[in-house]
């Protein structure tokens, strides 16, 4: 067997193992629990401590590719805000954001507790605007100027929950669910640093380490949800066994498999090195 064929075979075995590692826990859930990390608790507390009637904004700054990680966060936060009697505005700095928001509201309304939530009264989907940070800056002056209509074309004045909202300062909290740029960073720099509105956020697991410096004593970022695990922790906090909780088993098993693969790869290299050293000794002798 040539080296190339062996590499291809090894790769296929790795792919098959990973496929099984993801599939089997989805079919037969294990039910591993996980502790809630402090940054997730901070994000939860921000919404939990906002009085009823307050308006929160969720910016859907992601697209379909990261839906598995981001959507459970959005649904959990919408359900949490509604359970506390708050209203939710959805905006988007990414073109596919309005669809993500519509799906999240739809999913949250499937919960019997929230089936009566009314569009325009309890939530609105304002849609996508180009411009990234500049759009956020403009929201600091006037929401209505940036969003004269919602994503379905309804005029601002026909949406009762927006009646008294002028600019960012009228919001109780902001959460940017962000899979890249533009996104969470823009909301921190303008909404929090300029207008002093509490900002929390959610990112993919791979981006989370880059945002941790913003969780600091100045409260630039009030907590952070990083990836599926954070989403499952949030679901645990609101007492829900949602999609993130179910998928966490699969992710955990896949992570363990990757660790095992790293170990096997290292052992293989170590054995090869030892054999090479032995061969060299024999040749020299």
């Amino acid at each position, binding site marked *: 067997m040539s080296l190339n064929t062996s590499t291809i075979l090894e790769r296929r075995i790795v792919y098959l193992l990973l496929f099984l590692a993801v599939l089997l826990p989805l079919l037969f859930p294990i039910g591993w629990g996980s502790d809630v990390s402090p940054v997730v608790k901070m994000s939860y507390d921000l919404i939990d401590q906002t009085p009823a009637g307050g308006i929160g904004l969720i910016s859907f700054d992601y697209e*379909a590719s990261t839906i598995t990680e981001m959507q459970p966060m959005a649904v959990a936060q919408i359900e949490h805000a509604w359970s506390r009697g708050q209203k939710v505005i959805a905006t988007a700095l990414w073109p596919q954001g309005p669809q993500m928001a519509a799906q999240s509201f739809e999913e949250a309304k499937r919960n019997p507790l929230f089936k009566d939530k009314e569009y325009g009264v309890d939530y609105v989907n304002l849609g996508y605007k180009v411009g990234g940070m500049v759009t956020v800056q*403009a929201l600091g002056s006037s929401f209505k100027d940036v969003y004269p209509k919602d994503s379905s074309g309804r005029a601002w004045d026909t949406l009762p929950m927006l009646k008294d909202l002028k600019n960012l300062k009228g919001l109780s909290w902001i959460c940017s669910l962000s899979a890249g740029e533009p996104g969470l960073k823009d909301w921190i720099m303008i909404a929090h640093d300029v207008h002093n509105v509490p900002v929390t956020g959610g990112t993919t697991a791979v981006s989370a380490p880059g945002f*941790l410096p913003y969780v600091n004593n100045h409260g630039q970022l009030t907590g952070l949800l990083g990836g599926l695990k954070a989403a499952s922790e949030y679901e645990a906090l609101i007492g829900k066994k949602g999609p993130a909780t179910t998928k966490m088993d699969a992710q*955990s098993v896949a*992570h363990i498999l990757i660790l095992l693969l*790293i170990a096997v790869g290292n052992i293989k290299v170590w054995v090869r090195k030892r054999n090479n050293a032995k061969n060299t000794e024999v040749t020299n002798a």
Partner: protein
Amino acid sequence: MKRNIPLILAFLAGLLMIVSEFIPHRPFSNMVETLENWFMIIAGFSIVLGLASLLQMNYQKISTKAENWGYHLACVIAFALIVIMGALWGMEDQPGLLGQGEKIVSWLGKKPFDYTYDNALVPLSATMFSLLAFFIASAAYRAFIIRTFESNLLMISAVIVILGRTGFGTMLTSWIPESYRIWQLPVLADFIMQYPNTAAQRAILISASLGIIGSSLRIILGIERSYLGGDK
């Protein structure tokens, strides 16, 4: 002249934005508001430019029958289909040229645009992103090899963070008493993320920010001119 006018405009716009940060009052606040509106309008046009560029690039590949031209054809057909569906029946609550399309909605359950989005684009995009897991698994097996002291440190922290971010890691060390909580894998993982990681991320952030300030000044002062195009 062709180069000097854009340079003067960039200088004035840049200067105005900087001044408005320090004097956030009239007339600067109003001027900046106007510039922000201009930016959003210009950024909107960039979407149109992007679409035109996409069609032009794909058309060239198809007309010259370049390698894998079939994929480019598929891209253009998919693009045209989604635009036609959106234009004819609209999306979500928005009507299209043929109204709300009640008949087709009763057949598909959703408007064609929404149906395609939910049942084609979402699963396809998620699949593409999920494929990364297979590459990561394969790369971990072949490339994550301990060779030096530094790679050893990296490996140890990676193992702690990976295990700490799984339910398995929680279960594995949950027996450790509360007084030694720091040795529980999730707590240890959080410690690594919050202290060594954040310190390094802050250093990267500060360096990147200094770099951005430097390149912004170069553009405002007209030293950096590559954004104007051309070879000078």
